[in-house]
């Protein structure tokens, strides 16, 4: 008899089949993913998850019998019936055939789990980054060698001396190779020794030690280690995403939540397209500051509202850290639309002449209270931006009031477009 351990065999043998299945079910999966999004929050989306698929189009048909015929059936466990009894059919079921064996888990609408990658792929599949000019660069990647530990083979120029001597020392200690000092001392002792008998014994000992040290070399080929390098693709094009948010008193928790969802989606989306995405959080009241994520979403702040301060801060950061020649710059601004009356001109100037020329895309999301009607209000900021948008710049804007509107809005903003058409909707 043979026993074979197959546990270490390549895993995911069915991966290919699974992908074929998903490809085939693509439209159905897309529908299902969108449906499942509405009932989930974005953190869960990141984990992928279970979706329910209608089985249409994925049936494997076969010649089967339909319903309505005469049926004979043998069943176990009779307690009450005698021959000739008539059992009335349960109401509402014609052709009362008891459920057939093996019909247990119906396949209509069967549920299964998508991995995170699969989920994101499907989720972002029909979306496209606006302004593809720089994005092309992402496809030409540079490879650069990166240290990746040690290996037992390699070219002589890569010998890791330190590691090699360390391995040699470990081996020498483990195998108890006689130390040179020890043998020196022995030799000295022999030289000084008067007693013949004792000297013979010492010489024999020295001989044994010499032999042992010959058997156990100081450095063995086994000890040699080489530095190992792996080449790591290095994206040439990098993306940075600026999240600008108004945190003044008029922004409620609900509004912040909406904004956060939008940022998360944008981040997800960008990280799917770029290897490296930096995020910069800028919050502002009447003055702007760059903060970490935690503070950005949850840190308390009060004050007036000066949108221009955030834009100015963004400009400064870009100038300092993100050279527009090298970085793709995206910005998403969320606000309830309030702005100090005197700040309008300043904001418009900044946006039009400083920020937009830097950006691949600038999305403005105006968030409102859950019960408000997004279509009627005209906030100062909205009016201002609308004016700018007329000039064919990479700026788009939407209003959002309810959570379940976030995804449609996002989807709408980043829809795949013809290469020619301009970004601004």
């Amino acid at each position: 008899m043979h026993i074979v351990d197959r546990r270490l065999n390549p895993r995911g043998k069915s991966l290919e089949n699974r992908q074929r299945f998903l490809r085939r079910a693509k439209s159905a999966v897309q529908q299902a993913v969108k449906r499942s999004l509405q009932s989930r929050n974005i953190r869960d989306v990141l984990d992928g998850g279970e979706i329910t698929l209608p089985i249409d189009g994925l049936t494997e048909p076969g010649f089967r019998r339909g319903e309505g015929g005469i049926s004979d059936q043998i069943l176990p466990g009779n307690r009450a019936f005698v021959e000739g009894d008539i059992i009335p059919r349960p109401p509402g079921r014609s052709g009362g055939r008891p459920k057939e064996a093996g019909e247990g888990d119906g396949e209509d609408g069967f549920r299964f789990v998508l991995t995170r990658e699969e989920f994101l792929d499907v989720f972002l599949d029909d979306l496209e980054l606006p302004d593809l000019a720089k994005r092309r660069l992402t496809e030409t990647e540079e490879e650069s060698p990166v240290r990746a530990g040690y290996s037992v083979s390699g070219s002589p120029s890569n010998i890791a001396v330190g590691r090699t001597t360390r391995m040699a020392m470990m081996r020498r200690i483990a195998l108890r190779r006689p130390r040179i000092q020890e043998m020196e001392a022995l030799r000295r002792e022999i030289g000084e020794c008067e007693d013949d008998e004792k000297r013979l014994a010492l010489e024999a000992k020295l001989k044994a030690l010499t032999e042992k040290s010959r058997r156990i070399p100081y450095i063995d080929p086994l000890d040699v280690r080489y530095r190992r390098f792996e080449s790591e693709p290095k994206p040439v094009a990098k993306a940075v995403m600026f999240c600008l948010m108004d945190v003044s008193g008029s922004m409620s928790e609900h509004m912040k939540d909406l904004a956060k969802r939008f940022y998360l989606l944008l981040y997800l989306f960008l990280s799917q397209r770029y290897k490296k995405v930096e995020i910069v959080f800028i919050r502002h009241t009447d003055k702007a500051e760059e903060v970490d994520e935690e503070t950005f979403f949850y840190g308390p702040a009060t004050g007036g509202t000066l949108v221009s301060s955030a834009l100015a801060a963004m400009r400064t950061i870009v100038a300092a850290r993100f050279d527009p020649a090298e970085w793709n710059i995206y910005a998403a601004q969320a606000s309830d639309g309030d702005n100090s009356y005197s700040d309008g001109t300043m904001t418009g100037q900044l946006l039009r002449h400083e920020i937009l020329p830097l950006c691949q895309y600038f999305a403005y999301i105006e968030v409102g209270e859950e019960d408000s009607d997004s279509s009627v209000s005209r906030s100062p900021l909205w009016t201002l931006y609308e004016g700018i948008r007329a000039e064919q710049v990479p700026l788009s804007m939407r209003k959002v009031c309810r959570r379940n509107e976030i995804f449609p809005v996002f989807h709408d903003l980043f829809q795949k477009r013809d290469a020619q058409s301009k970004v601004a909707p």
Partner: protein
Amino acid sequence: MTTTSMSKERLLFNGADWDFPTLQRVHDACEEIALGELGLDVYPNQIEVITSEQMLDAYSSTGMPLFYRHWSFGKHFAHHEAFYRRGMRDLAYEIVINSSPCISYLMEENSATMQTLVIAHAAFGHNHFFKNNYLFQLWTDADGILDYLNFAKSYIARCEERYGEVEVERTLDAAHALMSHGVHRHAGKTKVDLRDEERREQERRVHEEQVFNDLWRTVPAGKKRTAADVGLEKRRLALGLPQDNILYFLEKSAPLLQPWQREILRIVRHVAQYFHPQRQTKVMNEGTATYVHYRIMNRLHERGQISDGNFLEFLKSHANVVFQPNYDDRRFSGFNPYALGFAMMQDIERIVTAPTEEDRAWFPDIAGKGDAMSVLRDIWADYRDESFINQFLSPNLIRQLRLFHLYDDPEQEEGILVSAIHDERGYRRIRRQLSREYDIGWIDPGIDIVDVDLAGDRRLLLRHNVTNDWFLQEADTKLVLQHLANLWGYEVLLQEIDSSNEVVKEHTASPRKPLQ
């Protein structure tokens, strides 16, 4: 109980942990009992330890270790996995493959007792059945199956490279849809031996001369066959019609198929044929394996090779396996082949060793023969589910399972008739009916290709013989016919015919685009 004499050394293992030497010991101990005491005859065993994920893999590709790629296996994987993850269903403890060497998969999560059970069940029970049952001997080639699957896999992969995944998938989809009608159900005619034929012809003539009676001449003859009739018959004969193996017919006669498409049909047909015996012997196969593991485990315990605790663990899972809920139980979903098979095997053992008067009357051939194993071995070799139940379901077991027969005619307004129960009048009827439920020829709709209009529009004509008003399911039939038409390349007509040979219903399909 021999607890005192049960020294630690005799035990095959202790507790739930196992390692590879344990498996070896367990296998050897089982082998000793299986071959030495039960007289089983098995293929060499190969035991493979796999993870649960690999078990799911194996599940989804119909249990085979290597298989060609197709989206439907991905679908089944997703389906099984979803159930497994939510804890709604356990994985099977084992999968065993009818091949030589006989490969049994063991899941790494199983406890030592479970591994022993699985080895006894699969590596000896199923293995013996595969090697000795006549259906498997007739239709499957245990030595060649793994090589064949390997060939199939690489062949289909090569086709995908050459003709594109889409084309191959279309062909495979179509072939899968017709898979259930891609098997030879009968061994078929053996080659005609002319000398033999001549001898038979002579015997026939002698016989006719002996029984000649001039009066037969006066019996009015049937309708004279016209020239058209004869032509039709000739044409059918040339095409081998009627033919119930649709895939075979297409492979040989579809005019527009490419050679590689024929090969794919052939592969699917071979796979279907390979699994056909398994479909026909579910109850017997599981019954045999369960009976064998039960005997082996009991012997191991008697010999002190399994501790009391581990034996209890075994009894618990054994009881789960052979549990048969009653018809009104929420867990009921038809007969459990393990339960029915095991009960019948045990019943046969009882009839052979300790028969009652009733048994002697019903089973004169085997009652009181004394050697249960030899009787069982013969039965395992010579029967399939349908004939097995028809022959060996005893009144005793019918009473024990309290079987009854429901006859449901939708025309009958009042309800469903209890037409037989476990009493003197019912035994034979119940037995006949239950055996029929395991007759593939009765369960699968009988569809034949009957004619091709070669001179005209090359329309393919199929017939479905409707029994008991069971017509084909519309939606599915439409889809299958579409696949069939795509393969055939011309129009396809399926007629449903009732018992009086009237055409009651027709389905047609035209090819979407010729498969080129």
